[in-house]
């Protein structure tokens, strides 16, 4: 579809910029451009969306490396300090070869101070990739979530996040804009999208989870590292959530999404509160759904669905298991960092009391090395968490959404079944009436039943159409999802491995500096 174009100039001339902005036009001129929407789907968007089925590879390579994004974020949060040479941050490995759609600002963690953003080598590789996958869909929108700010006091306080959008899609009025949103706004967005799209088979990315404990600490004003971590975790999760949502070609067209991104004032989403009327209704529905699932016995005519469901079930289990192990790793790594720090202090004390000067000096050096290493472990633990662990937990929730979509299909089938059964009953009733000979009432009743039969025939047809539609949508969605998943995992895991590489390189540096000190003991 799109040929490789020269990236538009961006002020600081950053290399890794793949906003092939001109491709925005292609969106509109693409051949098969109608939204795959069944009559029952809401609000056909005014803009034609790319037809996903026209391309064999769904997800878009030009989804961009969020260098720019991060730069801006850093500017906003004023954390950039490029002069601490030791902390060659793990971040510098982030602009990774393939695009990193969902983990842009992973390491703005409280303790990290310096970032360097250059990655010229990566630029070349990514360019090639773009050319290869140039016939994929091209998304031209970047979302950043930043600047968590506490608003208000006490139990009514909340965190406001800045949502910045950079895009050249013409459906948006500006090319760059930002708004302030709070967590419940995100939940509200998800709830709206879910109610519109889930039941017709679209996999709507789930929003980050609520956390009463976490938020309470923040509200109460505990300014400790655990609450800053919590806020950072949430910020990153919200960002990934939005990125995933806008990547979905259908959801991107949704006006609610647009309103969320663009409008400065958003009606407060109160239905998202856990204990509200809507919240309780949700819980009841969930329970009802669970019961229903057990009772629906569907005649699966399509082996594909059965197979897929099983696959997702397996995948779910495996991911959960992996997630548990990774969480353990994060925990132990943090422990290691703390223990290393303790040891460093102890070694310094030992060096102080050692009365042989050279040995004393060497021990102090050892203490310094260990202290640096403890920082390293700390940073690695962040990487472990934000890259690996969060990826897994995101996908565990996504798979739950996928399963939900399959369930909706079952319900759709059930509805169709029910309509067929009712139609049958009506026809039987009609037949009975024909046989019984009561001329006076019969005409009226006959008409009534004729009407009902027609009504139900229509419903049956509708049900069939709906079922076919949802099946078709699901197939497409699952295809897209799988591609996404593969890409996501590969990208993030590669990034994670690169962080491990960084750590080892640092370790080598530190120990190489220490070795002559140790040898100098005379």
């Amino acid at each position, binding site marked *: 579809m799109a040929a490789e174009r020269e990236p538009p100039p961006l002020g600081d001339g950053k290399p890794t910029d793949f906003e092939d902005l001109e491709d925005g036009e292609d969106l509109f001129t693409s051949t098969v451009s109608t939204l795959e929407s069944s009559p029952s789907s809401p609000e056909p968007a005014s803009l034609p969306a790319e037809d996903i089925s026209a391309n064999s590879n769904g997800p878009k390579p030009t989804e961009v490396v969020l260098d720019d994004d991060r730069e801006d974020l850093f500017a906003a949060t004023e954390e950039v300090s490029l002069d601490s040479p030791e902390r060659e941050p793990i971040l510098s490995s982030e602009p990774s070869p393939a695009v990193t759609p969902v983990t842009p600002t992973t390491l703005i963690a409280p303790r990290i101070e310096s970032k360097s953003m250059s990655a010229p080598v990566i630029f070349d590789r990514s360019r090639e990739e773009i050319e290869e996958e140039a016939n994929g869909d091209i998304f031209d929108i970047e979302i950043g979530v930043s600047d968590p700010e506490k608003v208000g006091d006490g139990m009514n306080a909340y965190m406001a996040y800045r949502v910045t959008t950079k895009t050249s899609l013409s459906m948006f009025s500006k090319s760059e804009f930002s708004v302030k949103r709070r967590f419940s706004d995100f939940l509200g967005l998800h709830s709206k999208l879910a109610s519109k799209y889930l039941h017709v088979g679209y996999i709507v990315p789930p929003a980050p989870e609520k956390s009463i404990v976490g938020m309470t600490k923040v509200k109460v004003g505990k300014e400790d590292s655990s609450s800053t971590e919590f806020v950072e975790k949430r910020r990153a999760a919200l960002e990934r959530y939005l990125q995933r949502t806008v990547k979905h070609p259908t959801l991107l067209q949704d006006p609610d999404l647009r309103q969320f991104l663009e409008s400065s004032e958003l009606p407060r989403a109160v239905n998202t509160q856990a204990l509200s009327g809507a919240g309780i209704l949700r819980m009841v529905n969930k329970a009802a759904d669970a019961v229903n699932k057990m009772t629906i016995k569907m005649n699966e005519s399509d082996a594909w669905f059965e197979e897929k469901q099983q696959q997702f079930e397996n995948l779910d289990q495996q991911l959960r298991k992996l997630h548990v192990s990774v969480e353990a790793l994060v925990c132990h790594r943090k422990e*290691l960092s703390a*223990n290393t720090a*303790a040891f460093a202090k102890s070694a310094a004390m030992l060096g102080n009391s050692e009365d042989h000067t050279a*040995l004393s000096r060497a021990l102090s050096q050892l203490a310094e090395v260990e202290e640096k290493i403890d920082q390293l472990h700390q940073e690695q633990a962040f990487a472990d968490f934000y890259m690996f662990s969060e990826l897994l937990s995101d996908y565990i929730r996504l798979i739950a959404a996928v399963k939900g979509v399959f369930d909706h299909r079952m319900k759709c089938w059930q509805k169709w079944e029910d309509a067929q059964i009712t139609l049958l009953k009506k026809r039987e009733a009609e037949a009975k009436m024909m046989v019984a000979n009561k001329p006076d009432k019969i005409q009226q009743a006959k008409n009534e039943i004729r009407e009902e039969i027609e009504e139900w025939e229509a419903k049956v047809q509708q049900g069939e159409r709906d079922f076919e539609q949802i099946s078709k949508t699901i197939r497409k969605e699952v295809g897209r999802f799988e591609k996404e998943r593969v890409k996501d995992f*590969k990208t993030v895991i590669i990034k994670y491995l690169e962080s491990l590489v960084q750590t080892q390189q640092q370790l080598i540096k530190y*120990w190489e500096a220490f070795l002559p000190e140790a040898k100098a003991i005379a």
Partner: protein
Amino acid sequence: MRACAGPRLGAAMMEGLDDGPDFLSEEDRGLKAINVDLQSDAALQVDISDALSERDKVKFTVHTKSSLPNFKQNEFSVVRQHEEFIWLHDSFVENEDYAGYIIPPAPPRPDFDASREKLQKLGEGEGSMTKEEFTKMKQELEAEYLAIFKKTVAMHEVFLCRVAAHPILRRDLNFHVFLEYNQDLSVRGKNKKEKLEDFFKNMVKSADGVIVSGVKDVDDFFEHERTFLLEYHNRVKDASAKSDRMTRSHKSAADDYNRIGSSLYALGTQDSTDICKFFLKVSELFDKTRKIEARVSADEDLKLSDLLKYYLRESQAAKDLLYRRSRSLVDYENANKALDKARAKNKDVLQAETSQQLCCQKFEKISESAKQELIDFKTRRVAAFRKNLVELAELELKHAKGNLQLLQNCLAVLNGDT
């Protein structure tokens, strides 16, 4: 030291060990290095050539090569158990003649309980995990067991070598009996009564130690040593504990890599998309990198934790020496006072005089040898720290480079594929 003859737990258990000789020789050098200053002369060379681990005891084969006339043969071996080492150590401590020397600290009791427990739990839980996981964990635990085993062998050996290198202690009769007598020494472990006696003795000793340490020393050298040792000992204790915790965290993290590798493998074999190759490669990476991380933890344990633990024990032995000297100084001063009193009363003067002379001789003898011992202790300590710190740094570098290589290779493959 033949590691393969080592823990005879059943042939099946030993299959998975892949670290044999390399690990062994490093470790060998590592612990011997603690006593790097030992002149290994032909006159007397002692080592532990073999070891056997049974249900609840370890049997060490002590091998001696000597050209000294005291022994019947030039080369011989006996089998000894831990209690016999303790008996030997205690006989040194109780020997008045050796009061002026730093008695090499006794080796710690071999403790396989934790490891055995883990192996047992693994056996019980065999049904609940996959074959690969089970094999992996078994290998891991076996390696752990082997490591503990080697460590305990090395520590017993170090004790013997220290004794053999000491110009006075090496001539001790008990030592020769220990080395040569090829029957069981019939040394039983202390029974409850004796343990209780020991406990009281220790209490009295520490109380006495406090009293005695209150006496200011005229000699600057010893005064300095005393203050130094006290502080040093405490700090080494602290450092040793913290180092332990650090190496254990390291090991836990390495274990996590193991599980992550297994999970990735499972994902790789079950996935339907082309990511399965990817997962399998990453799983392999985690398995390999885990081995390296485990080695890092083991090496840190050896070069750092063990070093600190050893010097914890040695500094205690040095403190004991100082205590004995102070004790003898107090005795000497008391004898002086007694002599004065006797002279004043003109009663039992001769007795008092001889007693005073004995005390004086004892004190001077101890002081002289103690001075040398403490100087030697410092030399040994500095050398040992130097060797271990250098080796630690070298090993850390080696492992980090190995890790880096692994990661980079893996990344190259993964990036090439995608």
